[in-house]
């Protein structure tokens, strides 16, 4: 299953100008567990999905109370780049969302 199909909400947004944070919300405990136990949603898995070095992944965090995860990555192109394609960081979830949740 792709992360896109597993998560109920996938919201991507800048966390300051130089980092992007992707909040993931899951609709039920089964899907939350699937995501929580996955390799994709680890710093190594996220780095692989974005093709960046692992030290660019600031963290993958979980909140069991509300079945949510947060993935934060240093932006590879930010508002310091005149040709940045996504200044709000609202569309940077797609490589992660399209990846298989293994």
């Amino acid at each position: 299953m792709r992360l896109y199909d597993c998560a109920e909400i996938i919201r991507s947004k800048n966390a300051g100008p130089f980092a992007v944070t992707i909040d993931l919300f899951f609709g039920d405990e089964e899907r939350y567990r699937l995501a929580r136990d996955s390799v994709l949603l680890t710093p190594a898995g996220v780095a692989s999905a974005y093709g960046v070095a692992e030290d660019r992944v600031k963290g993958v965090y979980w909140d069991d109370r509300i079945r949510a995860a947060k993935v934060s990555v240093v932006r590879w192109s930010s508002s310091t780049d005149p040709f940045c394609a996504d200044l709000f960081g609202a569309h940077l979830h797609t490589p992660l969302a399209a990846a298989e949740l293994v």
Partner: protein
Amino acid sequence: MSATTGPASAATSPDAVRILGFVNHIAPSPDIEEAIERAFSWGVDVVVAQGTGSDWGPYWLGSGEQVSANQAANVEPYVRAALRHGVPFVFSFGIAGADPHLETCLQGFDAMCARNGWEPRVGVVRSEVDRDLLTAAITDGPPVVPCSADAGLSPELTVADVEEADRIVALIGPEPIMAALGHDDAQGRLDGVLTGRALDIGLFMALPMLRGLPTAVAAHAGKMLECGGLALEPGDSGRCIWASLDADGFTVRSPHEGARPTIRSLVSHTFYERAHPTLEENPGGTLDLGEATYADVAERVGDGADATDVPGVRCEGARWHEAPYTLLMEGARREGFRAVSLLGVREPELLAQARTWTDAAEQAVAAAPRFAAAIAEGRLRLTTRIFGLDAVLGALEPHTSVTGHEAGVLVDVVADTAELAKEVAYYAFIRLFIGPYPGRKTTAGNAAAPIMPVVVPVSDVYTFSIYHLLPLADPCGPFPYVVTHFPRPAETDGAAGAVPTDATHQEPARASV
């Protein structure tokens, strides 16, 4: 997390501080008057809204231009209620929040006051950083380091960085606002505080801290309230939000019939636009929500037959770890001028080779003798973005060819002058429009041009060249409040709001209570 019903002790305690929060760069929802009235029926001690942010990027800070958000119009129903009930308002204004942005908003505020016959006395706090102060801090003080180590910024801020920046602001903390809220003279207290760029949660923290509530509670509540109704379910920043704070925590309610706070909506809001879910570095300390608790509560409001249970969420358990006081600064530097050209492609043969076609146009610019010096000197940069192929993801895009039936090509040029940017964009446009490509049948023109003139001059382009932490011994010193009577008198034509604050109508600023 079980629901409990009990007396609204937190909301009615004499020690409680009740805040009505919203976002003043977003137009209020249609039911706003009713919602404000409901909140005031519960009690409100201060009305707070943020109106600054870096989300819009460095353009606004650098250019001095103001986003067309009409912030004065957005605050009007809230100011009306605050003045009627005699409670202060605290607003940050101007998006980028430097002096020209704040002044634009203050002129709107003048007009709003004049229109309504209001004459509030307001503490105005400007947020631009004095260059001499910053230069002295760099020369004499500890290193001024970036807030984000990975951002490609100077690892230690230099005097040259300061000189090259077009404009520099600081996200002022709660302290300058506390000073203004504490102002008391022969005419009593001020009706409100208006600031430039400010730490969002600091606006909310000011009154609770002034009243002696714990910093941890004030900061936790600020974090929950800073985006107004976005923290409710359903989330909508055009709505307002209400909370009652006490020494142990706070309870959140929705003043709107169509929304309510839920544990999920509030906890997920603490995530919002933050790299870390539970730790947040702020001036003077770190807010730690690692052990925060959230519980549904229903509080009985009203008397006798009119009493109703109002749903709320009780939030407790935040901690505050003291740290040296630093303020985040944002500085913008001009990078050049942008000109663009847009072309639409629907010819299948050309779509199949879209990238090689745009590469050829880029190469034609790179090989043109007339542009050689500008390219060599780094004064000219060009890219062509193909919407329909990889314009959004760039190198991360797995698709290597256009898969749809049409695509858009954006020629994007940044050069040191507008003239050069426009000339290069036109040069590239013409190559795309008439340049030969293998298998071409459409020899009168390769693509559709939707905009005339085909080259669109966009604007100056800016970068955040400063995103550094300024160590500060006195959080109020550089950011005094100026007591200002609104509407400010006009200097020339008699129209309210035509000129900046008139010094003869100010009282001396006080840097501390």
